[in-house]
């Protein structure tokens, strides 16, 4: 963490010089708007509000960030707007969800791609997990895989929709175990998918770690596996899919962060890239995120750029056959 901070500080000094040259020394001069492409109250909106609440502090941007919700069509409406209609003046930011927007741009029908946006920083990583009802006969990932192998296409598995993290995780699982499941996308997002599991409408479900953690606390579900490279701090007892013998990496992890539309002046991008990660590290932000059961994962602009590129490759391979 210290290294990161030191890095950020060095970057900050370097960047300030650059931004002077560009004439953006005084940025930001007015409040900034951040577009969230999901409705008020959803996980992305909720987290976006928490991580930006200290933006007005002097050690952060010195100007507040206001959240603007543009929900619809699984996020496509908001990202279309950000790519096509938003002004690239540094006063319009957007929240991104990976793999959602990259998967959507690969499937087509939208006006954006990875190149339409410039990442600023990443604040959260919410891995997909496999959940089953509290009274389910499945107790481990092996049980689930064995059932899927013996009954191809019979394992009904709910998830939040097509080409979102949950779907990607399901595709990877199928590829890894050489079996086929019946993936049931729900309308109404992760909450509806979780309800289907708890009510026993489906045999299993893939859901967000944060929501599953809450449902487990309430005694409604069992969590069998995490689709990530390491076990999660919120549930150290749950094995990763790799440990359970499935070759599923972290491609389905739902990364959330801040980006700006392409064309935003480089000076402003640099300034944001230097300031925003430190804003996420604020102890109040960290405390609220932890209390809400939202796993944080802070990444700098360069790390995010690399992550986006890698993610796009994996997704292209995975979605090629669909």
């Amino acid at each position, binding site marked *: 963490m210290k290294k990161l901070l030191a890095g950020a500080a060095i970057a900050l000094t370097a960047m300030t010089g650059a931004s002077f040259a560009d004439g953006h020394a005084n940025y930001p001069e007015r409040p900034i708007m951040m577009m969230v492409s999901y409705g008020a109250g959803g996980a992305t909106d909720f987290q976006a509000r928490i991580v930006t*609440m200290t933006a007005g502090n002097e050690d952060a941007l010195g100007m507040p960030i206001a959240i603007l919700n543009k929900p619809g069509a699984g996020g496509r409406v908001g990202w279309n707007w950000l790519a096509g209609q938003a002004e690239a003046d540094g006063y319009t930011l957007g929240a991104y969800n990976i793999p959602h927007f990259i998967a959507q741009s690969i499937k087509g029908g939208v006006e954006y791609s990875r190149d339409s946006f410039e990442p600023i920083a990443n604040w959260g990583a919410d891995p997909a997990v496999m959940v089953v009802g509290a009274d389910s006969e499945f107790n481990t990932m092996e049980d689930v895989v064995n059932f899927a192998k013996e009954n191809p296409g019979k394992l009904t598995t709910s998830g939040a929709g097509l080409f979102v993290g949950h779907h990607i995780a399901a595709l990877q699982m199928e590829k890894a175990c050489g079996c086929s499941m*019946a993936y049931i996308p729900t309308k109404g997002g992760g909450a509806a998918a979780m309800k289907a599991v708890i009510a026993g409408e489906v045999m299993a479900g893939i859901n967000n770690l944060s929501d599953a953690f809450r449902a487990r606390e309430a005694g409604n579900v069992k969590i069998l596996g995490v689709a990530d490279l390491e076990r999660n701090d919120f549930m150290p007892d749950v094995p990763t899919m790799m440990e359970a013998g499935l070759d599923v990496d972290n491609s389905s992890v739902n990364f959330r962060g801040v980006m700006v539309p392409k064309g935003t002046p480089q000076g402003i991008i640099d300034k944001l890239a230097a300031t925003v990660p430190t804003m996420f590290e604020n102890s109040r932000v960290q405390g609220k995120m932890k209390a809400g*059961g939202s796993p944080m994962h802070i990444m700098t602009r360069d790390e995010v750029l690399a992550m986006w590129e890698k993610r796009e490759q994996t997704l292209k391979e995975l979605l090629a056959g669909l």
Partner: protein
Amino acid sequence: MEFLYYFGDVFTPINFGLLLLGTIGGLILGATPGLSPTMAVALLIPFTFQLQAAQGLILLGAAYTSTVAGGAVSAILLKIPGAPANIATTLDGHTMAQKGEGAKALQISFLASAVGGIFGVLLLIFLTPVLAQWALAFGPSHLFWLAILGVTVIGSLDSKSVVKGLLSGCIGLWLATIGFDDIMGAQRFIFHPALGGGINIIAALIGLFAIPQVITMFAKGRKGDGAEVLKVQKHPISGAFRELFRNKRAMGIGTAVGSVIGLIPGVGGQIAGLVAYDQSKKFSPDRDKFGTGHPEGVIAAESANNAMVGPSLVPLLTLSIPGSPTAAVLLGGLLIHGIFPGTDLFDNHPDVAWTFINSMLIGQVLMCIFGLYVAGLAARVAQVPQSVMAAVVLGLAVFGSYSVQSSMGDVYVMAALGVMMYFLERFGFSAAPLVLGLILGPIAEANFIQGSMIANATDGLGPYFLGGTLNIFLIVVVIASIAYSGYMELRSRRYTSKEEIIA
């Protein structure tokens, strides 16, 4: 009886102040077209960051309760339903206001809201564990049949001709298919980027109800000097109480339907008012008077949409599943303080849980008191000259549809649908069935697709959709509803003159 211990907490100065603030603010926000309860609560979330958990929830709960009731104000006076919950209120409420009975309509709507609302919260207090099971009982196949049940009332809702009712219902069903389909990811009828997210229901409501009326008012304004000023009849509050007691049946049906339907995750709130309205109409001896400014209609609709508030929180508070968008926002209000709904909430934070629930109970009463006070003043809106009124409503309509998701696209959608509806109304079609189609289409479709995917992977379509007690019960109700409509249609035919059929 645990909840009684925490009643004192509601009346501490800060808590009670927040309750008052939430209630009054909620009434104002609710009365503003386009600001649905979900949005009002979402707007308040940042304020709760600074408050303690119980205080924040009191503010949010009070706002939720009173925005639902406040929506009746614009529905009655301006014919702009603030949210889907208030659609049915416009049918009789606005006609009453046009007759100069706006004060009476508002009074009975607030009283009915309070009675329904208190009943709903009491259900939440006493029957939560039972209700939680009920909320889970509705799977995709049941929700599909429930939506079909909704479709069967389309024809008889606020329309003289069943055929025209069905036709406008079909238009609504078609409009509902526009946009990205969330389940299969298909794009349908997107000819303009503004339609990418589908037709926003709030924008559609504003356009379909308010715009035809604006055009009519402008048209009238040109003919004469437009000073068709209504005399607003004063109405004593005691009279409103008597009216309420005279209509116990509508009250009972509204409250029962609202409580039961409000519980079902994802469906409840939007159709509770309309279903209650339709059921009261079917059971009422004065069913012909519905739609002509009949108090029973207002009572049924408003008691239903407030009765839904309490039960709609059951899935959230017990199972940690937000059953409605508003519940999802409230979930955020809990999480920010590190409280997880479910057993954690009731076992470890009973002070938060019960103070919140109690404050909703008190909030219903406060909402009713302020509402009654406002009713007399607000009804004067009818005295505003029509040409001025038309401009004001138009302004509010644009503001309201823009503010839903800060998108000009929604304003275009609102205006286009409104102009279309103006012409449709001239041919005897009405907006309510169209809106019902718009709401029910996605519910029926999504649940059918989801249900059939599950069915194909398990025991097949037939057993999945037709088997099981709840499925069979719902199918029987659907058949009964169709049979009843057919019977009424045939019976009234005999008395209908040829001229009336042509008209």
